[in-house]
């Protein structure tokens, strides 16, 4: 499998990364290299092997349902670019 230039540009758009035509070409090369590697790995017979969702053979630790976080809004908002009435302000978004 290999990606077209169009697919690379679509991925960049979804990831909100602005890339030039040249960069898209280079990235396409890199990504296709990764696909080649995957193809090689797919040659291995993995029938009967359970897929892993994580590199470590461990299970999720759980925490008790307890409120342990105090209100630190002032500290967090001190480093925000803009706030008003307790809200974080961002460029207008309406879908």
């Amino acid at each position: 499998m290999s990606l077209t230039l169009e697919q690379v540009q679509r991925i960049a758009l979804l990831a909100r990364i602005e890339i030039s035509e040249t960069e898209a070409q280079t990235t396409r090369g890199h990504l296709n290299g990764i696909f080649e590697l995957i193809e090689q790995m797919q040659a291995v017979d993995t029938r009967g092997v359970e897929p892993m969702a994580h590199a470590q053979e461990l299970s999720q630790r759980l925490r008790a349902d307890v409120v342990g976080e105090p209100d630190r809004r002032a500290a967090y908002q001190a480093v925000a670019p803009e706030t008003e009435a307790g809200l974080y302000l961002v460029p207008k978004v309406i879908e």
Partner: protein
Amino acid sequence: MTQWEVVIGIETHAQLATVSKIFSGASTAFGAEPNTQACAVDLALPGVLPVLNRKAVDCAIRFGLAIGARVAEKSVFERKNYFYPDLPKGYQISQFELPVVQGGSLTVQVGSGDKTYEKTINLTRAHLEEDAGKSLHEDFHGKSGIDLNRAGTPLLEIVTEPDMRSSDEAVAYARALHALVRWIGICDGNMQEGSFRCDANVSVRPKGQAEFGTRREIKNLNSFRFLKEAIDYEVHWQINEIEEGRKIRQATVLFDPDSGETRMMRSKEDAHDYRYFPDPDLLPLVISSEWIGEVKEDMWELPNDRKSRFEREYGLSSYDASLLNTNYDIGNYFEGVVLHALVSGERIGTELSKLAANWVINEVSAKMNQEGDGHPMWKFGVSSETLGHLLRRMREGVIGAKTAKELFTEFWEEARANNYAHHGGHPGKVDELVETRGLKQISDTGAIEALVDEVLTANPGNVAEFKAGKEKAFNALVGQVMKVAKGKANPQQVNELLKKKLAG
């Protein structure tokens, strides 16, 4: 004329009843000042890691058991990637390929009265995920305000198969699901606060066609009425489009309650491509059979189990049993009424059960409905002990049905007047009022006979009419006796005595 069939599937987001968030220790309480409950994890500050809330998993297990689903021994959290300012991480932690709850079904009653039918809705899955924050688009000098208090609130997204065939079935399912999540205590069901919201996938197809039509998804319906109105409008719109030769295109739409119309939010072309992948910050969630067993131990009898028991143990009709199981509290209340209505030494029988069921379904529900949607279902103006005692006295012949109803209403009004802070009346009060107000029913045959004789003498006209074959005259005479007795004569005895005297 083409006959159309409607196909509906529903996705519900139920906010889980935890005190802290799904991956952080921030509070989930509703209505706090903006961003005072958004901690470093919720804000996605660099270096933070999510840690899963055990209670959220517990809720998912509870739900899985309640709908007879498979609770996955191993499930996986994945990142659902999209950009929006109320989602600071740039992805929502959700579940995709391996959800925690798989399959299951919910059997619901559709319609009312004689037209009721039962329908089983199959569920595809239910998965755990985090909620996003809120964007406020009012004018902040051309900017949007972001409140992240809701970000990270635990949700269970419950997805059905496309099994519903009308808006009525969709509403019946949504109501039953709403009752169930409250019943098992995993969600407060507060729709105004957004704790329980539905998306409806709607399509139409010519009756008999095997393939589904193209669907449109109506987002964020937060009342049963809107759910029905939105589906009805959407179905009408889709049929009209097709009949006028246009094609339905897959899209996400919003319902505007003011206009009663749905309008397009985004089409399939600009739909999101979420690029799910397992979240490397979270390990697979493993649920042992011991854990599932513990949850099972801790669970109450489920709605459909209790419905069957009510039919079996109390001899109730399927319809009455289902009405008494629309929520946990009403069925409990009914059982309390029955117990307290027992005359000493008596065992529960169908006559008593039916009487108690009628009172709860008609009188109690009527009082609750008077309060409208705002009335919390668990707030009974009269306790089951008091109502049971009223019915007991009625069944013992101490008071008549009319008196019982009057006292019940008086007690309920008392509770309403104090805004349901406490119940109106109490069992002792029933006996006290019967005594002090002289409400005791006259059941002494001699006394009633005297009244009957008095009325017969005073109303020779009615007597003559009755003897001439006018049935109505009999009722007039009964009315006269009750009037003379100030409503306190046992109506059955009055009837019998009158019949005997008139025949004689």
